[in-house]
C-alpha cells in the first residue's frame, strides 16, 4: 500500500519545495518570505520522513524531526523575530517578479538537463526528484544575487542550504544523524551571526542595504 503512495508523496513534498522557492522569488514582503521558508522547512521534514518510512530506518525519522525543529520552526522564528522588531522595509529587488519567475523556470529546466546527464543510470523515484534540489540551490543563489536587504540575503542562503539538503536526502537516502546534527547547528550558528550582524548594520547605517557595503575600513 505504502509503495504505491510513496512516489506521490515524494512528488508532493518536492513539489512543495519547488513551489515555495519560486514563490519566494515572486514575493517582495520579507514576512511572507519567512512564512514560505517555514513551509519549505516543513516540506523538507516531510520529505525526510517519507524517505525514512520507505527505508524503515528510525534514525532518518529522528533526522526528520530535527529538520522540522530547526528549519521549520527555529530559523523562521529567529528571522521573523528580527524582522518584526524593526520597521518594515520591503524588498526592492534588482529583478521584477515576472523576470524572476522566468529565470526560475530557466534554472529549473537547466537543473533537469544537468541532472539527466549526471544521474542517467539511476531510475529510482528519489533520483528522479533530485533535480528539484539542484533547482533550489540555483534559486537560492538567484535570491542572494538579486536581493538587497540583509534579511532577504539570509533567506536566499537558507533556500540554498535547503536545496543542498534535499539533494543529499534524495540521492543518498539521508545523511547520518550526527552529521545532520552538525550541519543544522552550523546553519543555525551562521544565521544567528548574520542576524547580529544585520542588527549592527541597522544601528550604524539605519538600514540593511548591502549595496552600501563597498569599502574596506581599518
Amino acid at each position, binding site marked *: 500500500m505504502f509503495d504505491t503512495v510513496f512516489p506521490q508523496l515524494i512528488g508532493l513534498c518536492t513539489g512543495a519545495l519547488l513551489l515555495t522557492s519560486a514563490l519566494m522569488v515572486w514575493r517582495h514582503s520579507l514576512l511572507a518570505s519567512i512564512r514560505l521558508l517555514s513551509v519549505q522547512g516543513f516540506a523538507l521534514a516531510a520529505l525526510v520522513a517519507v524517505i525514512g518510512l520507505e527505508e524503515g530506518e528510525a534514525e532518518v525519522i529522528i533526522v526528520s524531526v530535527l529538520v522540522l525543529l530547526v528549519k521549520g520552526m527555529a530559523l523562521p522564528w529567529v528571522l521573523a523575530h528580527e524582522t518584526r522588531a524593526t520597521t518594515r522595509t520591503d524588498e526592492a529587488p*534588482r529583478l521584477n517578479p515576472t523576470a524572476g519567475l522566468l529565470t526560475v523556470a530557466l534554472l529549473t529546466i*537547466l*537543473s533537469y*538537463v*544537468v541532472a*539527466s*546527464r*549526471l544521474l542517467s543510470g539511476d531510475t529510482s523515484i528519489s533520483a528522479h526528484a533530485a533535480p528539484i534540489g539542484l533547482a533550489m540551490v*540555483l534559486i537560492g*543563489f*538567484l535570491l*542572494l*544575487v*538579486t536581493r*538587497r536587504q540583509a534579511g532577504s540575503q539570509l533567506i536566499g542562503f537558507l533556500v540554498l542550504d535547503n536545496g543542498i539538503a534535499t539533494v543529499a536526502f534524495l540521492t543518498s537516502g539521508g545523511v547520518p544523524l550526527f552529521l545532520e546534527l552538525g550541519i543544522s547547528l552550523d546553519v543555525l550558528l551562521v544565521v544567528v551571526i548574520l542576524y547580529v550582524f544585520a542588527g549592527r548594520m541597522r544601528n550604524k547605517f539605519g538600514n540593511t542595504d*548591502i*549595496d552600501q*557595503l*563597498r*569599502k*574596506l575600513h581599518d
Partner: protein
Amino acid sequence: MTPVEAGMLGQVALLAAAVASALLVPSARWRSRVSGILCALLAAAGVVTGAIALSGGRGALTIPTTLPMDPLVLSPDRLGGLVMVVVSVVGVLASLFGIGSARVASASRTAWASMAVFLFGMQLVPAATDVVSFLLFWEIMTLGSTALLLAHHATRGTVASALVWYSAMSQLSFFFVLAGFAVLAGATGGTGFAALATLDPSSWQASLAFVLLLLGFGGKAELVPLHVWVPRVLPEAPGHVAAAMSGAMVNIGVYGALLVCVRLLPNGPAWWGVLIMALGAVSALYGILQASVASNLKVLLAYSTTENMGLVFLGLGASVLLRGDHATGAADAALLAALLLMVSHAAFKATLFLGAGAVARSTREMNLDRLGGLGSRMPWTAGAFGAAALGAAALPVTSGFVAEWMLLQALVHGSRVGGEVVSVTSSVAMPLAVAVIALTAGLALLTFVKAYGIAFLARPRSAQATAAREVPLIMRIPLIIGALLVIGLGLLPGPLTVALASAVGPAFTPDVRTIGLAGVDARGIDVVLDPTTFVALAALVLLPVLAAILISARRHPTRVSPLPWAGGGSRLRPRMQYTATSYAEPLVRVFDDVLRPTRDVEVTHVGESRYLVERVHVEQTVSDVIETRFYRPVLGLAQRFGVLARRAQNGSIHRYLSYSFVALLVVLIVVSL
C-alpha cells in the same frame, strides 16, 4: 660530533641567546652591550666554523622534516666555509660597531633581535647542501634584514618607502632563485645539490635555470637592473647595518652565482660566460658612474658596491667563457680574481660603511657638500676610511689592488693560449672587459678621491662638521681591524690566494702558490705579484729622496710673518673650496646622456636690485636612469591594469555573488553539454 657540527650548533645556541637578551634586557644601554657582544660571538662562531670547513673539516646537521623530499642537511664545503668566514668577519665588525653606535631606534628590541637573526641566516646559507635549506636560510636572512631596517621606521618617514622597494626587490630575486631551482629540481628529480649537479649543462633546462638563478643572485648582489633598492635602502640604514648588508649580504649573492657556475653546472656553454660578463660590465660601469656623481656619502658607497659586484661577476663570467674555450689556466685565474675581489670588497666596503656610520654619528650629516675637515677632528676614523678608500680605488698595497691586478692579468692572458687565439668570442670579449675595468678603475679613483678628500680634508663646510668629535673606542676598534684587513690582505695576499684556490676545487684547480714573504705566483698564467718586495724596493728608492727633501727643507728658514696679500690665499673661506658636486661637475657634463641630472638654481637678489645677488643656491640631483626609464613605466602599467581590474572588483557584494553564480551556471551548462 665534529668541530663543524659543534660550530653550527654553537651558532644556533648563540642566536637563541642573542634574541633572548635583545628581548629581555630592559635598559637600552645594557641591551646594546649584551646583545652586541652576543651577536659578535655569533659571528665569531661563524668565523671559526667557516675556517674549519675551509681547511677541509666536515660535519653535517640534519634539519628534521616530514616533507617528502631529500633531507635538509647543513654541511659547508670549502667554498661554503670561505663565504661563511667572509660574511662572519663582517658580522663581527658590524656587531662591535653597533654596540657603540646604537642609539634610540637602533638599540630597540626589534633591531637587536633581527640583527642576530640576520647574521644567523646569512652565515648558514653557505652551509646548505640542498635547495630547501638554502632557500630557508636565504629567507631568514632577508626577513632579518627587513625587520632590522623596519626598526628605524619610527624615526624617519623615508624608511617606509625604501623598505617597500627592498621587500619587493628581495621577493623578486627570491622568485627568480626559486624558479631556477625548481627548473633544476624538475629536470633532475631531486632537491639536494648533489642531485642537481647531475644535470647536463648543455640541456635547455640547465640554460633556463641558469638565467633565472643569475637574475635572482644578481639581485641580491646588487647588480643592474635589480639594484634600485640599494641607493634607497643603504642610506636609511645605520652604519653597522649598511656594513652588514653591503659588506656581507652581497657575498651571499656572489656565493649563489658561484654555486651555479662552480658546483652545480660547471662547464656551461660559452654564452653563459658572455651573459655574466655583460651583466657585470654594465653593473660596474653604471655603478661607478652613479657613485662618482653622488653627493650623499652612503649613496656613493652603495653605488660603489654595485660596481664592485659587477667586477666580481665580470671575473666569474670570464672564467666561464675561458673554461668553455679550454683556456683552463686563465679561467682559473679569473675565478680566483673574482673570489679575491669578493673578499677584499667585503673588507673595504664594511670599513667604509662603518666609517660613514662614524661620520654620521658625529655630524648627523651624510651630504658631502656639508662635510669637510674631519681628518683632524676624527683622526682614527679618517685613517681607517682612507685605507679602505685606497682599497676601493684599487691602489697598491691594498687588497683591492691585488684583486683587480689578478683580474686584469687573467683577462689579458686569457684570449691566447701559447700564442694561439682560443676563440673569436673571447678575443672580442677580453679586450672589451679590460677596457671596462680600466674605465671603472679610473672613475673609482676619482670617486674615492672625492669621498675622502671632500669629507675628511680641507675645512669644514658646516657647523656640524666643525663640531665633530672622534667616536668612542668600541667603534674605533672595528674600524681599525677593517683597515688592517684591507692593508694586510694587500701586503700579504699569498696565503689567502692559496686558500681561495683550494676552495673552488675539485671542478677548478687554480695552480697558485706563495712566493717570497707572502706573494702570489699564479702559474696558470705565468704571473707573479709580491707586494712586500714591491714595498721594500719602493722604500729603497723613496726613503733617500724623502730624506733629502726633509734635509733641504730644514736649511731654508721658515716664514714667521704672513704675506700681506698672498694672492688672496690667506683669506680662504670654506665656501671657496671644491664641493662634491663641483668636483663631479666635469663628469656630469661628459656623461650627461646617461646620468640625466636635474639642476635647480635659485638666485636671491638683494632688495629690489637686479644686479646685486645676496645668495645663489644650486642643487643638482642625478636620477637613476634605470629606475625612471624601466621601473616607473612598468609600475605605471601595473597601476593602469589595477585601475582596470577595479572595475571588475568594485567591492559590491552582489557583484561577487553574481560572479560565483555565473561561474556555477557555466560549470553546470558545460557539464550538461
